[in-house]
């Protein structure tokens, strides 16, 4: 492979990347092969975001880039230069848990807790997707009016479908859905 030549020649050229992480500006020089996940964990010591498979299968590394949920293990840090990153560490407001975090705690939406930052980050972004009218496969089980206006209820079935990319091997799925639903109901009141 010709691309190997430059690696074998010596140290890689580093690249400068600037991000806003949970509201704070960060500029770092990184190895261009560094994933957003490894940058957060190994360089910036923001270890709330977890590595579960490192190839986009499990969802444990889910966070938001410019408000959209992404798998940080499949995202090269250099490719999101200039972006706004929101991780699980940025969800609580000065020590006050977000509604979603509190609901996960109260409804026991986890056991070992390892997939939890990904579940919460995913649910956080998913609720915004739903609120702005993004459809899922399940949405088409609703009425024509609901589908065309994007005003479908965030049912348990919708939550399960939209959260299916976040694996919980402990199997706390039912409680996670209850937690998300509780926040959704609160938001509707």
């Amino acid at each position: 492979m010709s691309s190997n030549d430059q690696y074998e020649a010596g140290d890689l050229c580093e690249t400068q990347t600037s991000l806003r992480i949970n509201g704070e500006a960060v500029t770092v020089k990184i190895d261009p092969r560094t994933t957003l996940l490894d940058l957060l964990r190994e360089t910036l010591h923001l270890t709330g975001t977890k590595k579960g498979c490192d190839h986009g299968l499990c969802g444990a590394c889910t966070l938001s880039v410019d408000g959209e949920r992404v798998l940080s293990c499949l995202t090269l840090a250099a490719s999101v230069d200039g972006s706004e990153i929101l991780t699980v560490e940025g969800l609580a407001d000065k020590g006050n848990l977000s509604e979603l975090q509190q609901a996960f705690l109260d409804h026991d939406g986890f056991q070992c807790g390892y997939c939890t930052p990904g579940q919460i980050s995913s649910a956080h972004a998913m609720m915004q997707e739903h609120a702005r009218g993004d459809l899922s496969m399940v949405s088409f089980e609703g009425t024509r009016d609901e589908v065309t206006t994007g005003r479908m209820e965030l049912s348990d079935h919708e939550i399960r479908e939209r959260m299916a990319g976040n694996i919980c091997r402990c199997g706390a799925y039912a409680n996670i859905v209850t937690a998300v639903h509780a926040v959704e109901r609160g938001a509707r009141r």
Partner: protein
Amino acid sequence: MPAELIGTEVNRVEGRDKVTGAALYTADHAFPELLHAVLVQTEIPCGRVSSLSLQNATERASSQPGVVYVLMPLNCPALQELPRELTFDLPLERRPPLSDLTVQHVGQHLAMIVATTFEKATYAASLFTVDYEPEVALLSAKAVLAAPVEPDAKGGQIRHGSYLPDHFVKLEEEKLQDARGETQAPATPLHVQSTYTTPINAHYPIELSACIAHWQDGSLTVHDSTRWIYGERSALAAYLNMPEEKIRVLSPLVGGAFGSKSFLWMHVVLTALASREVRRPVKLVLTRDQMFSSTGHRPRTEQSLDLHASADGRIESTEHHTLTETSTVAHFCEPAGLSTRFLYESPRMVVSHRAARINSPTPCFMRGPGEAPGLFALEVAMDELAYAANLDPIELRSRNHAAMDQASGKPWSTKHLLECYAQGAERFGWSSRSPAPRSMQRKGVQVGWGVATATYPGRRMAAGCRVTTDGDGNVTFSSATHEVGNGVRTVMTQVAADAAGLPLDQVTFQSGDSTFPGAPYSGASQTTATVGSAVFLAAQTWQERFRQSLVEMENSTFHRLDASALKMEGGFVNTASRDALSVRSIFSTLGPALVDKLTFDVQSTAGDQEKFAFQSFGAQFCEVEVDEEIGRATVTRWTGVFDCGRVLNPKLARNQIMGGITFGLGMALLEQVPYDAKTAQLIGEYYLPTHADRPEFDIHFIDAPDYALDPIGVRGIGEIGTCGVPAAIANAIFHATGKRLRDLPITLEQLMTPYEEGAVR
């Protein structure tokens, strides 16, 4: 004792950290000067690595930017062989890692690359390619049984052929070869004989196994995602030929284990060696693919079940023979037939297990070891017998209910299985089931209802607990157990607070440090009974010492009262004659004098296990929809009723049981490690249940304490949720489709095969 906290739905004590990302798992720990290790593993199942190619690969990797060290067989410091007690009936490998150039399986450790960053180590590892002299691999039990047996190698570290193990782990009474009754099976009107297979399953905890090793003044500290701190310390001490006192193993929060994260610690000792060599802390995180080869798996089974019964469905003879697989370098036997020895009344019983040594990674325990695959076979066979006898499956099971433990001859400590059937049937609505296969439909798809019995032993071992009291009256209980998601920190806090008479906020439970008093591995559903007994004793002792101190100390309000007249509850000391005083206020005046008296260790035994047999039971009911046009089975509804002693925290217990059922659902419909049958290479992904795959749950506990096992009346619930689940699903699929499917996982292809009347017995 007022039981105020036990039985209540306390939130997880570490829950706040888990929802904020503050919770620390092994790989989250930072150290100055930390180096990153990446493992290289073999890519063929059997043969030999060329020595010259190893040297070349090492030179190639070493010359890469950032690479500090390469550990491989030709430069690996000699590791000691593990003692027989760790390898004889436990799945620790007989052969130390990197100790020869033979290849026994795909994914055998070959080298460890240590570099300044993870990226640099990963790239250098990709250049570490070697040449092999391949040999013919034996990749299945059938291949082993058909081939001539090669002699042992390396003084018995490498073994071939197959064998008949005597017992399960260290439990000599859990016999893997067992029989009672007549030599020959009787001639009976009803006879069911079938063969069932289960595939290689992976634990697949979402946390990858990780370790960080560092040395200081000849002492080793290891942070590891382990669920057996004391076992790991013994193994490391043996490998490295150093005293256990010089090794500290820390297991912070563990991100799921399910039977893995024990026993296979070769990557940990290699990380320790690398750290010693480079004199810096070294961190290793296994890749997801390496999790399949380096942390154990549930091995394949082929089980033959043979039930003879009278015309009214009473079992007269049971045979259960298991053929399973282990590696050439370690002992393990999936004990599929253990519960067949006692689950149903059967005058005649024969159980056997044969383990064949194949060129695969070493297997180990996985949630419901034995029971998960074994009850699949037994409970589907019971369903087959129910149809043969024209009996309702619950009626058949009730007729064969075992009033005592036939394997040991002892009475059960408690048993409420018949209530589980009755309550489960009522909650599920079983009475409206139409028994004939293919007789229920909904919205164009077939609907089936299935049932199976769940069972798992009630276990308890010895454990220790340390009590530390500070000057403000905060009490910390510590034991070298592990928080793997089982909720041990929460329920132990509840147990300790109740037994000490303190409120939750004055009590802390710590786990995960080898400097704490010992506890066994977190597995076999034994933690709550085992550690709970130690914590209960510790907290009771704390309260006795505290009351005694109050009546003995001259400046105490309670001086010269009878200690037994002091009643403690929720952090207050009550007497008949005086106003209640808070423990906090007592500490504000007497604190310094109390600290030493209230800091101590206790040791609890395994209790008296002579009189009774301890066993948990349950009944699993499910509904499955099968769309035969697209080959999809959807589990829509689940009712589980469980008899597993006293429930300490219903919220956590329900969660763990739902998780166990979901684990069994994956085993039934999705999970198998996708090895290519010829090359033993991974050729796909391992499918797991997702949010979209799980049923609606109705979980109920009988909640009858078992005080014969332990003073808090519990039997663990880690495994029983999984037990019986694959059978309940397979039985529901039979009811929906008329197809008796005996090979797991039940796949799309099996479900799409057209139904033929009378084709399936």
